[in-house]
């Protein structure tokens, strides 16, 4: 009886602890949600209300979304963003997989030196690279068969070689036991078959990480697209948001409505990949 009572007391303490942890976590979640709630709330205000300190709208202005869509030319920019993101993602994943596999599992002269040099470029701030990258894409457009400036190559190709993605995959590929490669070789598999049939299925987790991070980065990019485009033909959705800012202020309500529209695809991607992402991590452990 006493033991049972003690156990109940112990369980009760654990429950209290758990409740406390849940409260702290809920509070943290709520705090991190506040900007999101503020964005939605402001997107439904009149301009005058949005300029003030109100947190919730006194009247819901759903028409802000239609106006934001029209004034930001989202119907045009949305398609551009989808194309730019798909091309960039496809290229980045393709090149990263092959580069990472070569660095992780193939022997060739200067491999570690080349990887080290590539890795060191992570330290260079992105803004410093803007002008050199701009000069490179301008030059490539002049000598190549298709123009790069104001076209998809300038918007996508510079981001297909991501050293972060290569590094992440390389670390993962290097963990695949040599025994698996030996076994595959005995079965007649070469590097390509081993990569596609053994390594990649075991590497869903880092691939999902790359997919999500690259999607967010590409979808939200602004400075580079503005630099390499002269017309709306290939400008992405983030450019549309700038229509609400002028020298004297910002149409805050429309900016927030536009911002919410632009993040919908990111939310959708995250929603669909979250489960797969965690599943992949759980299932990617190798047993000896």
């Amino acid at each position: 009886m006493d033991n049972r009572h003690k156990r109940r007391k112990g369980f009760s303490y654990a429950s209290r602890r758990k409740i406390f942890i849940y409260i702290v976590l809920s509070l943290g979640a709520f705090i991190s949600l506040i900007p999101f709630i503020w964005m939605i709330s402001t997107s439904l205000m009149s301009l005058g209300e949005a300029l003030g300190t109100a947190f919730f709208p006194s009247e819901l202005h759903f028409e802000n979304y239609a106006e934001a869509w029209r004034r930001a030319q989202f119907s045009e920019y949305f398609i551009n963003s989808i194309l730019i993101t798909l091309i960039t993602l496809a290229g980045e994943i393709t090149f990263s997989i092959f580069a990472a596999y070569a660095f992780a599992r193939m022997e060739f002269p200067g491999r570690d030196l080349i990887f080290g040099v590539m890795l060191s470029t992570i330290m260079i701030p992105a803004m410093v690279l803007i002008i050199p990258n701009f000069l490179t894409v301008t030059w490539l457009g002049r000598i190549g068969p298709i123009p790069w400036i104001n076209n998809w190559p300038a918007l996508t190709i510079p981001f297909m070689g991501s050293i972060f993605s290569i590094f992440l995959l390389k670390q993962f590929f290097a963990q695949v036991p040599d025994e698996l490669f030996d076994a595959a070789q005995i079965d007649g598999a070469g590097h390509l078959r081993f990569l596609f049939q053994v390594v990649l299925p075991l590497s869903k987790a880092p691939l999902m990480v790359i997919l999500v991070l690259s999607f967010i980065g590409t979808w939200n990019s602004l400075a580079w697209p503005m630099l390499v485009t002269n017309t709306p033909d290939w400008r992405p959705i983030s450019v549309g948001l700038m229509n609400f800012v002028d020298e004297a202020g910002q149409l805050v309500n429309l900016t927030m409505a536009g911002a919410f529209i632009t993040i919908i695809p990111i939310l959708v991607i995250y929603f669909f990949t979250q489960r797969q992402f965690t599943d992949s991590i759980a299932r990617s452990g190798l047993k000896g």
Partner: protein
Amino acid sequence: MKKFSILLAIVMLFSLVLAACGPTETPPAVEEPVVEEPVVEEPVVEEPEEVEEVEEPEPVEEAPPFEGVTVQFWHVYTDAPGEALQALVDEFNDTNPYGITVNALDQGRYSDVEDKVNAGIQSGDLPDVVMAYTNALADWYSVGFIADLVPYIDDPEYGLNVEELADLYPHLKEAGSTPDGAWIAYPMTQSANVLVLNYTWAEELGFAELPATSAELKDLVCAAAAENTEKGGDFAGTGGMVFFPNATNWLHWLYAFGGNELNDARDAYDFTSQEAIDTTMFILDLKNEGCVWQTESYPNPEQAQRKAIITMSSTAGAPYYAAAFADESNADVWGWMAAPGPDGTLAVNAFQQMLGVIPSTQQREMASWLFIKWLTSPEIQARWIPASGYYGTQYTTEAMMTDYAAENPVWASGVELAAIGPSEPQTFPAWSSVRRTLNDFAAELYNATSQAEVEEILARLTETANELVAEVQ
């Protein structure tokens, strides 16, 4: 596992297909103006297919001197102003007698234009006409990437005559000219940092007329502050003038006090003048008496709530004030006014939406100037103002805007102010850097506790500014 491999293969294949299916032609609007040589169309003489008789060749009309020249124009306007500007450009393309075609391209904000021109200076991809702030044009001029417009403005055939030059507001030539006399920035329109006054409230406080001097202005803002202190609650500590200590606002008051940023010889920065000291002491006096205060963000709502009788804003901020007053259902009459100095000098801090020409061939530069001349002519400017909300640059334009002014009283309250100026010395060496420094010093000045401290800060500011000039030179 198998499904995943297939999915991955599809993604890779998709990338290749997209790459292969991409457009292989230059998008229609992209041009490379610098590389492109000015094209003068040769009269096409077609070979007759079957010549039976030798016909007299028809006299070929001489092509206009700029026939076939395409001018690329980078600007910052989107949405309704962008559409209005494009309509004007289309009209120019259809009607100009020179055969010039202008390709107007919106390039985002002013900062985006600056980034693009800076990159273009390296790559050679530059427009012919660029809209920018004067300091940016001055920076590019210093490295040879903005043309001096004097030869084109003075051109006997295509330039401006004496009357047209005299029609321009007096401060604008100086605002767009460098100390060495080159005219590098031509004003398309103007906006200005002004005082926003609640006329109705001022009248209720017994100030039926606009304050004519800084002393009268002090009486007004302190009376409003006293009224709100009496109200108490949320209103305590409010009511006077909202003043943010930054370069724009401090310079605005400096101009009203008759000062400027340069020494008498106008060859170096000098912020140690008596006017600069008086300006700062005036602001500190208002602060110490509780007649100025600061808001967390733009003070539009506070002014609409009668928590500030005067705020400082760009005239481009009119829609935000209108929205704030509408949201508060406040029917008070409000509008712009100039800052008054101790002797009644009136001043605003005027900014221009400047146009600059990128150096190329003489023909292209002249074609660019002809477009600028047309775009800034009074008739065209008078049509552009309602779409943009800016102010004109010429007396003749002002006279054409009477109907618009009658419909837009707030805009009308700024018409005379736009002609006053002055403007910051944006073409003086290192002004961009000095201005950034001035923002920090203005905050320091606002926290000064004595005149001696003010003088010491101003001396340091002068020294720092001239060091920045030395660095540039």
